[in-house]
């Protein structure tokens, strides 16, 4: 419980008093030791879109996420980094309850979207997933036309009342995803026929077509080549103006390029959260430092 009280401190107040909040480099001996599993840094923000408190996730007996508390700010890009298997995807999937579909997966704790607990019994996952969209690691367009891929979400949620309106939603979503100029003349062709990078942007267009508030991206560029990756990264920066984005990445340069805040996970624990600049230049936890300096990964 001692950890809870510490975690619940909000704002820019330093979480662990002993560690200085100044921009000066934290002295090596002042860094949190490797054994420390309490979150270091500033996990909370003033204007939060999503707040997570004391989240634990179990896969059967396996404890995959251990008491994680963090906020996702409005219109920010939050990057989640960490060695593979540390629970980044698991935590990300808690945010739109995609873990509900996993047999044996149990989520405890409190996750709120705009002050509403999304794990409340009264919450329906269907509208929740419309509010919190998701882009997956491997591009997964439906084996349907490009148009139908984008139009599917608006159709099932009844977001467009006429064909013309639907056309408009499709066009604007594809434009936002930066794909319109490449596919406008072949909307009726299968989405699976596009290149990997185009497919991933199509999936992003599909996600934003239902006008979500938050977009979750699980290593969206890991299956893409460098040029396609750059395109998607530019896109993320543009989308940030309208959406809140949580992105999981194993690529630290990518986290540095696209995000404002970064969270470092280690074996199910949230080790450190802070502004991206700070995390990469001045980590306060030895594990974070080990990871970003390449000593561990």
């Amino acid at each position, binding site marked *: 419980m001692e950890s809870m009280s510490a975690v619940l401190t909000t704002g820019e107040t330093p979480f662990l008093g002993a560690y200085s909040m100044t921009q000066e480099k934290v002295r090596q001996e002042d860094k949190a030791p490797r054994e420390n599993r309490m979150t270091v840094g500033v996990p909370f923000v003033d204007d939060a879109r999503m707040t997570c408190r004391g989240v634990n996730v179990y896969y059967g007996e396996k404890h995959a996420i251990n008491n994680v508390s963090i906020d996702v700010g409005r219109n920010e890009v939050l990057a989640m980094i960490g060695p593979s298997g540390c629970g980044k995807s698991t935590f990300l999937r808690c945010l739109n309850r995609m873990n509900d579909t996993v047999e044996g997966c149990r989520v405890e704790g409190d996750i709120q979207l705009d002050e509403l607990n999304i794990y409340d019994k009264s919450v329906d996952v*269907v509208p929740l997933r419309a509010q919190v969209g998701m*882009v*997956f690691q491997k591009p997964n367009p439906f084996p349907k036309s490009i148009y139908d891929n984008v139009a599917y*979400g608006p159709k099932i949620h009844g977001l467009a009342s006429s064909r013309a309106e639907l056309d408009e939603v499709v066009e604007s979503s594809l434009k936002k995803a930066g794909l319109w100029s490449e596919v406008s003349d072949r909307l009726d062709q299968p989405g*699976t026929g596009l290149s990997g990078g185009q497919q991933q942007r199509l999936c992003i267009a599909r996600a934003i077509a239902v006008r979500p508030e938050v977009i979750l991206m699980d290593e969206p560029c890991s299956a893409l080549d460098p040029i396609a990756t750059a395109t998607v990264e530019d896109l993320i920066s543009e989308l940030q103006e309208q959406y809140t984005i949580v992105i999981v990445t194993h690529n630290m340069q990518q986290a540095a390029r696209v995000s404002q805040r970064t969270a470092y996970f280690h074996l199910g624990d949230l080790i450190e959260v802070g502004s991206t600049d700070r995390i990469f230049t001045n980590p306060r936890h030895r594990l974070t430092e080990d990871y970003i300096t390449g000593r561990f990964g």
Partner: protein
Amino acid sequence: MQAEKRETTMDRVSKGLARRYRRERWFRLFGLSAIVTSVCFIALLFVSIGANGWSAFQQTEVLLDIHFDKEQFDVDNLSTANYGALVKNSMQALFPDVTGRSDKRELNKLVSSGASYVLQKMVIKDTGIIGSTKKIWLPADDEVDMFLKGYISRDVAESARRLNDKQIGWIDQLVAEGRLEKKFNTIFFTAGDSREPELAGIRGAVAGSLFTLAVTLLLSFPIGVATAVYLEEFAPRNRWTDLVEVNINNLAAVPSIVFGLLGLAVFLNVFGMPRSAPLVGGLVLTLMTLPTIIIASRASLKSVPPSIREAALGVGASKMQAITHHILPLAMPGMMTGTIIGMAQALGETAPLLMIGMVAFIVDVPHGVTDPATVLPVQIYLWADSPERAFVERTSAAIMVLLGFLISMNAIAVFLRRKFERRW
């Protein structure tokens, strides 16, 4: 030193390489010979059935000048008129010198007893022909047919063959006059079963098979798909569903005759459904094909990549929407393939149908699922059991028709698989 070591490694690899390639060659040769053997057997099967059966598609007919004598139609009911007499009279006119009573009987035997039905049908269709004389091709007796097809030899002693010397003489005369010819056998495709080979057809059995299969398809496809979807997408994984799964796999291995006995006990004895009816046959075959369809459907549901499911759920589709909009359409080709294979099995099934009385001798072509009927494989079984030589070729011909159905069903399955197959 280093170079030398490399040398030896390469040498060793190439030594092993020869052995590896030899093994591969042997394996390929083995596979090839297995395929060649099975192709040979299939070819043998088709050739022997074809050689036996092709002649059944022709039937000998005799051209008679039938005089529709007004006197004969001096009755209340057109169907009771003595059509046999019309045939006899015209035969008599062709062979005026045949006078003896028994000779006349022998002569009349050359024309099928079914000839009078042909005339009856003509008159009922158009009563205007009464009083006129018409040249009409009528079916000849099966023995005449066999003789013309060369299955009865004239070199055999008279007592050892079914046609005596006099009859053969008349046949020769008719052939010489151009009154006896082999024609396309329409009766085979339009008639039901008969005791007379020349009047027996597969229409009744085909109709029975189609009705039975229709019942089977209408029941087993929806039930099978629904079961597969429930088990795969909704059912919790626990001991009960494991038990259900094991039992479905067991059912697939149960001998089909057991389903026939079950059908007899349940559908006929408990529910009192009609015997020999395609409805009951369809129910029994449904029990038999359900496991096949469920297993195939589950496999094809499993083969839909989970990423598609996640994609649908990720944009906020409900579970049901994800299934009906994405998973089912993608799994459908596999389900249909499984269903068609199940149907093909059902089409060739005999044993369970014997149990519920579909083995009866039924002349009428069934017009509904409750009419008594038989099915193609049972018809084949019945004909194969008949002593007449002419049924031998009809058996083979019926097998050809059955194989034709089976091959086209499998072709449809392959076509569907090709057409709707997706690559991710």
